[in-house]
């Protein structure tokens, strides 16, 4: 019985493979268009993965990645026992966590709000304006923030002075660091991030809105009971993927916003890599921290995927 079942399974697989080949042959032009992406993915994303062995080597410029001698887990151990490990790790997780809590829902909210705008010209205007900050580099954004918040003639402190308050060095206030990170991140990314949700909203069946309206649902109830469930799959997938980047707290933004008073809460893994790894040519150490980040992120993605799949029936695989 078992053998027959196995044979049947094998036959089924062969059939499926044949069907796939027939499909590919039939739509070969469309598949041809995927080819450059696959080649790109293989060359730029998969081939460099071989370089992770660098994390286990004592790298020498002349011998290259594969010729350098093995060092085992030496660099990982050096990182874990370094006095800064916990503070750097904690800061990274805190900043990323805050970004997940505040920055992740922001584009969803903006997309829902834009969906409710009935004047198409105004909607397009708002959309365009909200996309623009995405194209401004962090260097310029932080420069603007510095000009606004400087205690020496900045707009913010001029307003405070006109209200009879003393000027403050806001960019250097440790208490203001997280709000500045979150708010600037939202300002820069909310418009661009909303595109994918707007696309998802546009695919929600209009008949569902009509049915809900006939049932007496108001606009808020339509949003809550029709739009949100309609885009929940997209939200779920992006949420899972956002956990993959939990240790990517935003290197350039954080580096530029660092000020002496906030050093203790602003040192993150990426800035640590730059300082200890790249600046001194210790590629192997930088790679070890990078690999640690990747493995940790992978574990988080798998866990989140499992949980989201269990409770919301949405998953990456």
């Amino acid at each position: 019985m078992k053998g027959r079942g196995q044979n049947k399974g094998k036959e089924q697989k062969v059939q499926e493979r044949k069907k796939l080949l027939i499909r590919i042959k039939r739509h070969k032009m469309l598949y041809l268009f995927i080819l450059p992406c696959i080649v790109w993915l293989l060359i730029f994303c998969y081939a460099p993965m071989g370089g992770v062995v660098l994390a286990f080597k004592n790298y020498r410029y002349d011998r290259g990645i594969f010729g350098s001698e093995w060092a085992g887990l030496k660099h990982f151990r050096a990182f874990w026992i370094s006095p800064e490990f916990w503070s750097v790790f904690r800061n990274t997780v805190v900043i990323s966590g805050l970004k997940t809590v505040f920055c992740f829902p922001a584009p969803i909210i903006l997309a829902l709000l834009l969906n409710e705008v009935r004047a198409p010209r105004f909607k397009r205007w708002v959309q365009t304006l909200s996309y623009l900050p995405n194209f401004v580099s962090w260097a310029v954004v932080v420069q603007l923030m510095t000009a606004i918040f400087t205690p020496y003639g900045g707009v913010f402190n001029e307003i405070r002075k006109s209200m009879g308050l003393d000027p403050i060095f806001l960019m250097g206030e440790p208490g203001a660091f997280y709000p500045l990170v979150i708010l600037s991140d939202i300002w820069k990314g909310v418009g661009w991030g909303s595109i994918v949700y707007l696309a998802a909203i546009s695919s929600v069946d209009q008949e569902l809105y009509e049915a809900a309206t006939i049932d007496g649902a108001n606009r808020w109830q339509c949003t809550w009971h029709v739009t949100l469930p309609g885009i929940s799959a997209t939200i779920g997938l992006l949420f899972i993927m956002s956990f993959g980047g939990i240790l990517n707290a935003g290197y350039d933004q954080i580096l530029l916003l660092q000020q002496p008073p906030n050093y203790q809460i602003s040192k993150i893994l990426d800035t640590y890599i730059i300082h200890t790894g790249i600046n001194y040519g210790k590629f192997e150490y930088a790679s070890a921290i990078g690999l640690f980040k990747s493995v940790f992120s992978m574990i988080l993605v798998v866990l989140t995927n499992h949980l989201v799949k269990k409770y919301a029936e949405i998953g990456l695989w």
Partner: protein
Amino acid sequence: MRKKRVTALLTACALMVGALAGCGGNSTAPAESSSAGGETQKQEVNAENADAAAAEDDGEYYVDMDGTRYKKFDDVRLTMLICWVGKDPVASDQYGNEVATAIRDRIGVTVEKENVTMNEAEKLNMMFASGDMPDIVDCAYWGGTSSETTIVNKAAREGRVTDISDLVPQYENLADAWKLGYVSQRFIETELDQPDFNGARYILPKVASLNEQELGAYGVFVRGDVPEALGIDPTTIKTTDQLWDFMVKARDYGFTDVNGNDCIVATAWHNGNKITEFTQNFYEKGRSNYFLDENGKIGYRTLSDDWLNEQLFFWKMIHENVLDKECFTTSDERANEKVGNGTALFTCGRYHATIDATKSSGLYDAHPELRYVPVGPLNYRDGEPLTELVSEGTDSTPIILFPSTCSNIEAALTYLNYVNSREGRILTRYGFEGDTFEYNEDGQPRMTEEWVSRYQNNQQATRDELRERGINDLFDQCTVIGKGKELFGESEPFMGDNMDPYLKSYWEMRPFEVWPGYPIDAAASGFENYQEFAQWAFDGSTAGEYTQRAYFADSEEEAREILEEYQNYLMTNDNGKMQEFLDYMTEQYGTRDDWAF
């Protein structure tokens, strides 16, 4: 249908080619590795020398105005990386410009320069790691554990840099670069001849005799109207307490800048550069980070109470709104604005920078009463007047190095030898006789009146025009031994004796002083695993993080705690290696009697 297929096929191919566009191979053969500190390259270079010697009889030579012979090459093209962010652009035609053509006609070598557009340390790292290296590199080498120094040393040890120990002495215009007096004893022992280099030398320091050097003109400067308004003679300020009172009075007076905005009391240049000029009075005269304590033991300055008190003074400056709170992360451009508009009442660092900022903003000419003037100079703690202490020869310097893939080391050195000759210097800096320069009665080249007048009308446009012809096209980057004043009576074209009178008088107030003796710092490199130890013990970034955090602490107690935490970290990290190191230094102290602190 067929058309569609062809179009689809072509589009897909184009996309694929586009995706792979950056995957070009490196046509340069990778350098042969050498675990013995570049032995292989040394052999290759010696072989080349032998070839050159053999070619001497039947080769073609160029003889310059002083009779020096240069081997003539057959149109050798070399590349040179100028590893300094923010340098002037290079001439757009690096091969065909007039100066490049003239040099090629004489010695058959052209060097095409390229500026970096990214962080210097990152560029060096990428270059050495990928093996995709130019023929010549000009970069910083500030010594010790600075990024570029660490990377260059690693590259040298790992066979990425050519050993030039046997070559440089053969080139008469370059040979002096390694001589004591041009470089210091410390530089020779701890940088040039590192024990694990096994006798090889990899770097060509760019040096100048003391007469050629410009004084750093470091100090504290105050906006001209401030002392007048407060009735204080700034030259009478000699101690930290006097300076503090002066700054507090200035803060409370209510000065405004040229735009009528409130003033900052004191600021600094990029990232708080040289704020220690405010605290010179905390220490005795010396150049070292070490001192001899009352028990005859070597101490490290950062572990002393003097250091702690100095840092607490900066805390006070921040806390009492005297020092610019943004100065530790500021850029030179922003500092220029603050000084150029007269927003900062006190500045520190180089006097040149302060004067230039006010000149380029127009404040210098439009408001002569606001021109910054020197404060003090302060005294050392023992009451001795401040001088600009220098060692006998440079301690840290920009360098030139030749990567192991240099396609023709002999041509590269011949080129540098030529541009460092008198004739080469005249050609590369002054251009062509009768056209751009003429000789004065002393036989010194001077730019023609026409060019001088153009320069006075528009410095930048004139420089740009000359650069496009190859004149002054970053040739400073190729200058190994500075000799402008010795040979031509001016440091560079157009300069003549046009030194700012304020700067000139400050040079007299704080003159050079050669600090004799054998630097105690030089003893440090003999400590076992010194490089590994130095990377954390003398890491400026970690020190900066602790100290700057302390400056912004809410209270003096908190600031003190942070600073003591750092001192404690230094003493306890790596199982108390610091104490071992200091014991070693004390041991070394007993080995000779001419130590300089």
